[in-house]
């Protein structure tokens, strides 16, 4: 069975959205669909919903960095117990700023990591071919196994200006 991708070009994003709805109603999984555009296609809710763990990882990063830095501060102060200026050896008030900044740094790095991960940037290619982006409009990419003839109709009915079948790049280990 050969895997191939159909690239359907639409002048207007609304048409691509209509095509996605048509395909979904015909029982086509949304996970096999992808939109490519020079500008974001913003709908509320997103037309191709995806689960994101970005907020969760941001919070986890914040908690990790915050607690590690606080632990380091307390350990360092106990390991070298200099009492300065009548202050106690360890003090939550005096180290609160360090905790806060490390917490936020952890959140920021968590967000950056998850963006790279979820957007498939550096070093995580999805294996799908990248269509040439038209100056105007969007490209709807449909992943299909075997015969793609059945897909042509819903795509052209919704106003695709050009439909093109592309063989998968066939890189091993990508699916």
């Amino acid at each position, binding site marked *: 069975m050969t895997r191939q991708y159909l690239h359907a070009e639409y002048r207007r994003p609304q048409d691509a959205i209509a095509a996605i709805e048509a395909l979904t109603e015909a029982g086509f999984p949304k996970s096999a669909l992808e939109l490519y555009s020079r500008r974001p296609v913003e709908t509320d809710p*997103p037309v191709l919903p995806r689960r994101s763990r970005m907020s969760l990882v941001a919070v986890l990063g914040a908690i990790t960095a915050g607690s590690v830095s606080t632990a380091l501060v307390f350990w360092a102060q106990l390991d070298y117990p200099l009492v300065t200026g009548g202050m106690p050896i360890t003090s939550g008030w005096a180290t609160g700023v360090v905790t806060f900044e490390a917490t936020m740094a952890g959140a920021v790095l968590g967000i950056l990591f998850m963006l790279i991960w979820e957007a498939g940037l550096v070093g995580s290619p999805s294996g799908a071919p990248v269509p040439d982006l038209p100056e105007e409009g969007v490209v709807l990419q449909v992943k299909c196994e075997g015969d793609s003839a059945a897909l042509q109709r819903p795509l052209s009915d919704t106003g695709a200006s050009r439909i093109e079948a592309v063989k998968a790049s066939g890189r091993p280990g990508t699916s």
Partner: protein
Amino acid sequence: MAPSGEPTELSASSISDDILSRMPRASGRYMAAIGFFGAVVAWALFAWGYQIQNGFGNTGLRRPVYWGFYIVNFVFWIGISHAGTLISAILRLTGAGWRKPVTRAAEAITVFCLMIGGLFPLIHIGRVWYFYWMIPYPNERLLWPNFRSPLFWDLTAILTYLTGSLIYLYLPLIPDLAEIAGRSSGKKQRIYRALSLGWTGSDRQWQALERAMKLMAMAILAIAVSVHSVVAYDFSMSIAPTWHSTIFAPYFVVGAIFSGIAALVLVMAALRKLMGLEEYLREEHFVNLGKLLMLMSLLWLYFTFSEHLTTWYGNLPYEMQVFNLREQGFFGIVFWTMVACNFAIPFVLLGVSRLRSIATISISGATVLIGMWLERFLIVVPTLSRPALPAAWGNYAPSWIELSITAGTFAAMALLYLLFVKAFPIIAIWEYDETIPAR
């Protein structure tokens, strides 16, 4: 020029073409500007080297004024860096559409000001070659830094803010970098392709980017508020008269946002004129920023009044020594100049609607920058000139070294900005021209 609505009916590609075509070429005028600002920066670096080589005594610092222009500049530049945060993060979170042509200019200010401001603690310390002793890492000295010191907090706050704001500047730049790569060839294409980190424009990437920007905006807001609070803590943690004040942190944050907006207005006015961005940076943007500037001016006045009223009414002898110095003689002139620059002039120029124009809003921005610099000067120097024991009183005047380095930082700002607008589109192309389908 209509105050609302899109100014042109350009298509997506022509908007890209148009914005990219306004990026400066390496013309004679451009190179002359680079050369001029580069020379000033080089002179400032020479002054710094002279100070390191021949001793700190070549500055005008002396006992008891151990902190002078360097700390004033430090607070000033870190303050301006709040421009990017406020405009970009608050407006992004509240979904204010008019922010779009303004955000990148603001975010770039943040990064450059932090780079410049972050240098001042290094310029300021007596043995800069040991600055890394402030960084916590296991070392042969068997000693950790003092986590209780506000200066250590500064280090953590500034590093966090610099990291955060670099990411915050870079993320929305990625689609634009891919766009430039798609429109160029050869080495230039390879560089921009690499910088765009493999951006393909898929919906998956757009969604991740939008989500990341929203989260980053929240994080960077909290960081920005904390950064200038920590800068204020440098003063308010001490027991020097008039520094030990509980409202210093919010006072500094308000002043920082105030001067940040002023700097943004000035930068925008310069970009508009020099790069011909009249169609993008329109009067409505200046008017909106002018209103924000007015609001911050009134907030600043409120904080300044509260701070001075409580000092005066409390009438504590050590505080009144500083208070009286600040209100009379030379510092008195500086004080009233500050009030004029930060309140009186902007209040008239921004408050009277007939006077409100791009030119007057820019003038207000300039006076506010001057006023806020003077405010920091009035916080740092008079307090140190009047320690509790009168026998230790003293004065301060900067030497050529501090003046050169101060001038150098302004030149460095201009230089960094010139290089930035040459390499990257100063208007966020994709944000400016978002496709919003009817649904």
